[in-house]
């Protein structure tokens, strides 16, 4: 009687074959089978070798090429779009960068462009940003890259104008209509997660190599943030304010123009900022399909391993990114303060100011149109050669003096992580990898995800790029492991220490606004062209996202939970490992997902600096006509890999979420 009262209900014993054990079992079996079957059925394919599928894809591409002037789809649709965009970009170039209208110089010279940019900054941002803008534009000339900078700017502006012209109306529509939002969501997801390099090649099939393809590629990348943020801005407008407008008898147009858009303006400007940054980043990458500008300078220098020149051009890209970012974000803040405080400045003073600025700008534009000294930047690249030489010297010094450290790091990662991963993945028969991944997916996630994984791997086999795929997968996994290590350590530090957060966050923000190309230059300078360089570039590209997500997750853990753990006498390490990380595991899982997608986006760039495999296949597909089919297939293979990894990590994140809420 007494005993039965005290005996607690016996907890159901967990079965021995829980997930971790099962997973360990699968991995052990993999290693054993790898030892047995090593080197069999690994489906290698030489660099210049093609499979029948690649040839068929190449032939199909040729058919598309040939039908350009016959097929009605081209004649009445694609060709018109191409012509229109080409004309538009050429027009913007004629204004600021290219000789035009029978003149040896553009319509507006350096003095005029700098004046206009500064005037925009004065009128829409503030004086400090205006000074930064003037200095930034002057530096393009001083670095000896005026023409290239203006080409990039022209391409970026053209793409931004077109992106906003398409994106804002669609965003408003998505903000007003739930049905359209549901429809657009997955499409935008796909546009944003697809590695940018992958769709460059197919685009050239339709729009030819040149400004049109570059602009369309840039738009694909830059439109999603415009649509997303505009829709969000419209939805953010308090419903009661809209009702108030409607209850007074506003027409739908009046509601949009007088209530919704003014209230959404500030957030929409954030969208414009994101669109501009995305466009700039893509406009430099579009150098791969022969887009003119700074990206091309960087790319050429990378191909010849000319660190100085690529650093010089990279610097100009960074300056442009900073200027564009500061002007648009200051403009956004200004809208906000104007709204909050009421127009503090007297309208008369404002009118005088505007008139003066416009008049001064008009004078500068006129001078730059008429006089050569104001049209062509004077002096032959005074600063540029210094920068080039300094960068070269720094690179050489680093390679000579830091060699011990960089080489040690390189060797640890290469021999400790990369080679084992690669050996197991490429050395296993394809059916073994397929079996192992599917089994692991079954254990870790759902049947559906397991089926997706199996299908993706089978598709990789069918594409004839199995071994290249495995090499890329190994590099991607290594990079992701590094990203997550960096992300968790730095993220936890930032999440726990407000001061660290304040110092590190701006650096991460700057890292994210910088176009991907720019990273490559110093890394290449340090490590030379190897697989490791590609991995580091991917890590640098992906780490800011992962770090921020983890930091926000750790910061989001309720203070009361941390206080309770501390009050119970936990050591800092115990607080981290038993409270903060478990409670933030959804954020960590999301960081892994995003980290993977970002790493994968750099695969093609890695192909440029010695990573080989799929990235190299894509790049050589650009440059060699007979490899075009293979390049397209490689692009598809990257998408396939990405789909598989995204599905796996997303499912894992959902599981983590469910576990965190006790639903497992």
């Amino acid at each position: 009687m007494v005993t039965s009262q005290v005996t607690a209900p016996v907890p159901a014993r967990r079965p021995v074959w829980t997930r971790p054990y099962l997973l360990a079992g699968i991995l052990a079996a993999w290693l054993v089978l790898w030892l047995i079957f090593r080197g069999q059925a690994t489906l290698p394919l030489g660099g210049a070798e093609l499979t029948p599928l690649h040839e068929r894809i190449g032939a199909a591409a040729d058919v598309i090429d040939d039908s350009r002037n016959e097929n009605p789809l081209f004649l009445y649709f694609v060709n018109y779009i191409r012509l229109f965009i080409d004309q538009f970009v050429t027009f913007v170039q004629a204004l600021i960068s290219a000789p035009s209208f029978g003149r040896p110089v553009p319509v507006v010279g350096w003095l005029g462009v700098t004046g206009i940019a500064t005037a925009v900054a004065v009128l829409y941002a503030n004086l400090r940003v205006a000074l930064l803008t003037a200095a930034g534009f002057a530096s393009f000339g001083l670095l000896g890259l005026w023409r290239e900078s203006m080409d990039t700017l022209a391409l970026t502006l053209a793409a931004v104008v077109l992106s906003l012209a398409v994106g804002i109306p669609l965003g408003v529509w998505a903000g007003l209509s739930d049905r359209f939002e549901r429809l657009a969501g997955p499409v935008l997801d796909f546009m944003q997660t697809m590695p940018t390099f992958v769709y460059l090649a197919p685009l050239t099939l339709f729009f030819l190599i040149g400004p049109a393809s570059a602009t369309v590629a840039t738009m694909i990348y830059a439109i999603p943030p415009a649509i997303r943020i505009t829709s969000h801005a419209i939805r953010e407008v308090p419903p009661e304010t809209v009702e108030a407008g409607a209850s007074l008898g506003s027409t739908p147009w009046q509601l949009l123009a007088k209530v919704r858009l003014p209230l959404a303006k500030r957030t929409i400007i954030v969208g414009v900022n994101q669109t501009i940054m995305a466009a700039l980043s893509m406009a430099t990458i579009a150098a791969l399909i022969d887009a003119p500008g700074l990206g091309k300078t960087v790319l050429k220098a990378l191909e010849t391993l000319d660190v100085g020149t690529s650093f010089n051009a990279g610097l100009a890209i960074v300056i442009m990114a900073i200027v564009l970012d500061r002007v648009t974000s200051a403009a956004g803040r200004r809208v906000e303060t104007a709204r909050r405080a009421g127009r503090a400045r007297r309208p008369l003073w404002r009118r005088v100011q505007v008139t003066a600025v416009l008049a001064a700008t008009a004078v500068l534009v006129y001078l730059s149109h008429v006089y050569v000294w104001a049209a062509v930047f004077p002096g032959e690249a005074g600063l540029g050669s210094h920068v080039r030489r300094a960068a070269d010297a720094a690179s050489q010094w680093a390679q000579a003096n830091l060699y011990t450290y960089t080489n040690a790091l390189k060797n640890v990662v290469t021999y400790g992580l990369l080679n084992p991963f690669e050996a197991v993945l490429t050395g296993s028969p394809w059916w073994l990898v397929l079996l192992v991944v599917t089994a692991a997916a079954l254990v870790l996630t759902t049947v559906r995800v397991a089926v997706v994984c199996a299908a993706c791997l089978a598709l990789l086999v069918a594409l004839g790029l199995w071994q290249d795929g495995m090499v890329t997968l190994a590099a991607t996994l290594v990079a992701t492991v590094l990203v997550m290590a960096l992300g968790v350590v730095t993220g936890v530090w930032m999440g726990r220490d407000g001061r660290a957060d304040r110092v590190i966050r701006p650096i991460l923000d700057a890292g994210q606004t910088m176009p991907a190309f720019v990273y490559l230059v110093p890394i290449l300078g340090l490590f030379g062209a190897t697989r490791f360089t590609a991995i580091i570039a991917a890590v640098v590209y992906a780490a800011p996202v992962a770090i921020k997500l983890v930091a926000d997750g750790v910061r989001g853990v309720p203070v009361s939970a941390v206080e309770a753990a501390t009050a119970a006498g936990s050591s800092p390490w115990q607080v981290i490992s038993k409270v903060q990380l478990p409670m933030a595991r959804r954020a960590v899982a999301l960081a892994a997902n995003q980290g993977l997608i970002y790493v994968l986006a750099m695969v093609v760039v890695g192909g440029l600096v010695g990573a080989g495999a799929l990235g190299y296949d894509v790049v050589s597909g650009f440059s060699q006509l007979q490899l075009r089919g293979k390049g397209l297939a490689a692009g598809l293979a990257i998408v396939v890999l990405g789909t598989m990894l995204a599905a796996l990590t997303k499912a894992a994140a959902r599981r983590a979420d469910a576990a965190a809420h006790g639903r497992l």
Partner: protein
Amino acid sequence: MTATSPAETSPTAASENPAILDVRGLWKVFGPRAADVPGSPLAELSRAELKERTGCVAAVRDASFSVRRGEVFVVMGLSGSGKSTLVRCLTRLVEPTAGEIVLDGTDIRRAADKQLRDLRRHRFAMVFQHFGLLPHRRVLDNIAYGLEIQGVKKAPRYSRATEMLDLVGLTGYADSYPDQLSGGMQQRVGLARALAGDPEVLFFDEPFSALDPLIRRDMQNEVIRLHREVGKTMVFITHDLGEALRLGDRILVMRDGALVQTGTPDEVVGAPADDYVREFVRDVSRSHVLTLRWIMRPPEAGDALDGPELGPDVVIKEAVPTVLRADRPVRVVADGELLGVVGAAEVLEVIAE
């Protein structure tokens, strides 16, 4: 619960006036195939059963009532009772599922878009719980918004808006921005905006629940004053019984989307329609709301019938001094006819509750 005498005939000021707004069989059902619910057997189900059976939520169930010209008509209920949806149905900010809403002979439900806009511009206006002001416009431009979208020229619309600004006591704040004002002042702007179009009916959706208690009392007085000055018909939504009793000529009590009771404040307090309303009004001091009509008794043999005289609509609280001072029962008289008498016993019984 002594007073059970039905006060059907209580002559309030508005009761002689004809109805300005007539609502018949109004339904609002949210959910899949919502239109099938009203008029079908499903309509008889309770809210929870309906939700279980069809996934639909009946926010307003078969509401019928009429609002008389010039009265303050209060709709009262707890959150989730459907009162906000009801008022939105009346202005068609929410499209009703079934029923008719007739404003002065015009069926609002049948109005086409343009006609509906005209109704909203000229015939009725609404004041919102969270004000719904436009933060990027000056106070004056907020008030003038309704006139602006009608295409009224700048000079007349500003002069009208300034008039309204003075009316709600915000003289001098024309150039301020909403964010610079306190909550109470922002709601005054909302009020001025609603009045600017000179509507016949004003709808208030819990206009003062976002304000703190002292300001709330101020604003209630403001509404009473405005009602006296401009004499608009007002439909006032609230969850606050005190507010309902203070402002309402008549009160409609809602629960789970259905009407429970409609009546004057003293009817609701004195003769609750069911236990729900009874529970609701339990803490109200009845002597502040009920009138002599509710406690008078027929004169009995032996009553001295030469006491002081009072009308049947005098609130008990105000009759207390007279009743207690007199040494004989007070006679309740209307139009020279003796309706009954009230003695100290009756008054003390109500007060002692």
